[in-house]
């Protein structure tokens, strides 16, 4: 998609956008792909023209496909250097039997070597169509004039065929799954992933609050920063008691049910089993004892602050619009804080019992294979 069209040949766009002081990029997530750019307010038309053009006129030249293939293989090889990527990939593969969430977004090495120009072009013609697109614009402009501009540029692009319906119902997991990944390094990691609700479920908001209590507040906005989690339950029990050197957790906003994951870096003096025991004890305590209302109020304040930080930049404001439209609609975003504020201690207890059960989880352990560090 960055290799150009007849109207904007390869290389011309990068140069034009950079010249205007703009920035553009793209990324693929599990459920969506986004092309985003931030431009000076008086230069916005250019990027709208570009996006309208490449929604229909992508070339996908064979030589570009081959060149990009080796680039993406290099990206995957870079990812494979990370123990956490290897562990994540194994846990996701174990978590799903049918749903595409079992695959890393970048794809397997075998797929990357096999995919051909026809596969790419078919994907492009199927999904890069107006009836599957959302355009979000934020910044210093007059709304009516902007809408007119968008209509003029995109309104005449013909609808594509109806999108294929992909049945991906995932059978319910019946028993706990455990796996071990061995690889280079000196540091072991533990990832506990629980099957979680889809983002539109009311359970999602409750699990967000529960996560805040267990591992600290986290930011759903992919561009936003976070805050520390040193007063969370699991930090106190695992890191302060020197069983782990770090702990983090979080949900991801997805269309279908994905995973709630807690990731721990294991302390050199402990074994994964020690951490699993404490994790289970802490989860059991949440399941058996109602959390304080003040703890819930704190979680809501943290979410409010994270929203404020994450909404500072124009880029993030547009991102939030598009992000929420991918799995629900903009109301999801505007009502997010109210939904969190409505969560009760009883809700948290119910959701902890519903989702944080051993038979609903995948435990992945990364064990170093004993190979030491760098050598000249």
């Amino acid at each position: 998609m960055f290799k150009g069209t007849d109207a904007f040949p390869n290389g011309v766009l990068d140069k034009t956008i950079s010249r205007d002081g703009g920035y553009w990029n793209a990324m693929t997530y599990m459920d969506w792909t986004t092309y985003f750019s931030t431009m000076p307010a008086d230069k916005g038309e250019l990027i709208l023209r570009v996006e309208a053009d490449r929604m229909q006129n992508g070339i996908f030249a064979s030589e570009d496909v081959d060149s990009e293939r080796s680039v993406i293989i290099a990206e995957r090889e870079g990812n494979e250097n990370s123990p956490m990527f290897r562990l994540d990939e194994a846990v996701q593969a174990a978590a799903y039997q049918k749903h595409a969430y079992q695959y890393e977004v970048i794809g397997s090495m075998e797929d990357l070597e096999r995919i051909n120009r026809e596969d790419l072009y078919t994907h492009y013609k199927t999904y890069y169509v107006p009836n599957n697109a959302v355009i979000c614009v934020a910044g210093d402009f007059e709304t009516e004039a902007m809408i007119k501009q968008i209509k003029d540029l995109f309104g005449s692009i013909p609808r594509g065929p109806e999108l294929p319906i992909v049945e991906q119902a995932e059978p319910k997991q019946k028993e706990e799954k455990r796996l071990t990944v061995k690889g280079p390094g000196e540091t072991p990691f533990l990832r506990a992933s629980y099957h979680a609700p889809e983002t539109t479920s009311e359970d999602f908001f409750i699990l967000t609050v529960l996560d805040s209590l267990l591992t600290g507040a986290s930011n759903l906005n992919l561009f936003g920063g976070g805050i520390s989690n040193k007063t969370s339950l699991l930090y106190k029990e695992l890191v302060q008691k020197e069983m782990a050197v770090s702990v983090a957790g979080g949900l991801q906003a997805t269309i279908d049910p994905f995973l709630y994951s807690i990731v721990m870096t294991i302390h050199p003096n402990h074994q994964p089993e020690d951490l699993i025991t404490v994790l289970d004890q802490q989860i059991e305590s949440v399941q058996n004892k109602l959390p304080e209302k003040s703890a819930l109020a704190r979680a809501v304040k943290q979410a409010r602050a994270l929203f404020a930080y994450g909404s500072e930049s124009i880029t993030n404001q547009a991102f939030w619009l598009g992000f929420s439209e991918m799995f629900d609609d903009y109301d999801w975003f505007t009502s997010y804080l109210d939904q969190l504020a409505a969560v009760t201690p009883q809700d948290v207890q119910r959701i902890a019992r519903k989702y944080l059960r051993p038979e609903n989880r995948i435990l992945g352990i990364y064990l170093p294979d004993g190979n030491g560090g760098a050598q000249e």
Partner: protein
Amino acid sequence: MISRKGYRPTNSVPGPEDVTRVKLDNGIVVLVRPNFNSPSVVVTGGLNVGSLQDKDETLGLSDFVASALMRGNQTKDFNQVYDKLESAGASLGFSGGTHTTGFNGKSLVEDIELLLGLLKESLFTPTFPEDQIEKLRALVLTGLAMRSQSTGEQAAMAFDNIVYHGHPYSRPDEGYPETVREFTKESMTNFHADHYGPKGMRIAIVGGIDPDEAVDIVKSFFGDWQNPSQKEVPQLPPWQPLGESKSVRKEILGKSQSDLIVGTAGPKRSSPDFLPAALGNSILGQFGMMGRVGEIVREQAGLAYYANSSLSSSIGPGPWSVSAGVNPKNEDQAVELIKKELTRFGSELVDEEELEDNQANFIGRTPLSLESNIGVAASLLHIEKHQLGLDYYIRYPERIRAITREDILIAAQKYLDPEKMVTAIAGPPLQE
């Protein structure tokens, strides 16, 4: 004087009209720029303490002390510090560098006094509790173990080790496992007493707060800080240029990709060569899809996911280098392409069009880099640290437009001599 009410910034870039700069009696410089569209506030700054003050045998102590500042003080223990902070959805952290120890905080506007109070307690009266030191040590040692497995970090360390041989820039700020294991409460307390103080400290506040009010709050928390024992910042020794090209390769078992760096030392931030070099660096490996290097190594040869160049903006001569992540079998080809591009860069004038494109980019992107509170705060600290003047961003377009093709070639020839390049690679063992 800025009026307290009805104030709005008049420019998208900070300048003397909308930035308040006050130097307190004890030497602390306070910089404030309001952004009333924001319900939050960023508090960031730095002190003149860093790994330059570490001896070889205690390398990493400065960074370790910075990381320990929030683990307990005379007023609050670790849990109380973080309970206050996290209950407000605020954040605060310290990080050690070579010249500077930085701090970075943010909160909702309503909690700015809480944030500054915790900053004050952490800076003034840390107690470095023994149990917290051990917890921190385990964390840092784990980080160093992960560093030893990172191809990117190992390549960078090997690069610095050769380029800056015998110079403080050759040393990693975090130290080594053998030095970190030796830190004690006493060594940390002494380090803090010797080097932490108001002299050279700067603090920038950006967000939904009136500038006069922000200055008053900073004064009330930090105005009486004194440390007569605070030592002077050591002079940076001169850098000795390399006599010839050198290369090194580190092996890390089990990796899929190699990281490589080709380059040497560039100009200091305060040098008149810096902006021409920065503009040239953009042409070399940043503009569009990673400049000339990206075009050759990524787009044409398809060798790397990333291939770009960087120029460090440092008090001393920071690295100027090209980096790429490649399959081990492509290392030689990538290095050859990069060196060829570096040779071209140092022997030919850049094109007129390249110059104009990059000048437009440098000027046009400035407002975007300043769209967030943290972006503005970082830029205020940058101009203060390097004494660039409050009107730096106002004059910036004119300075960039004044750079010529010849200026860039002169900078390239002065710093990037192809016969004196360092190549550092870290990756898996090569297949026969």
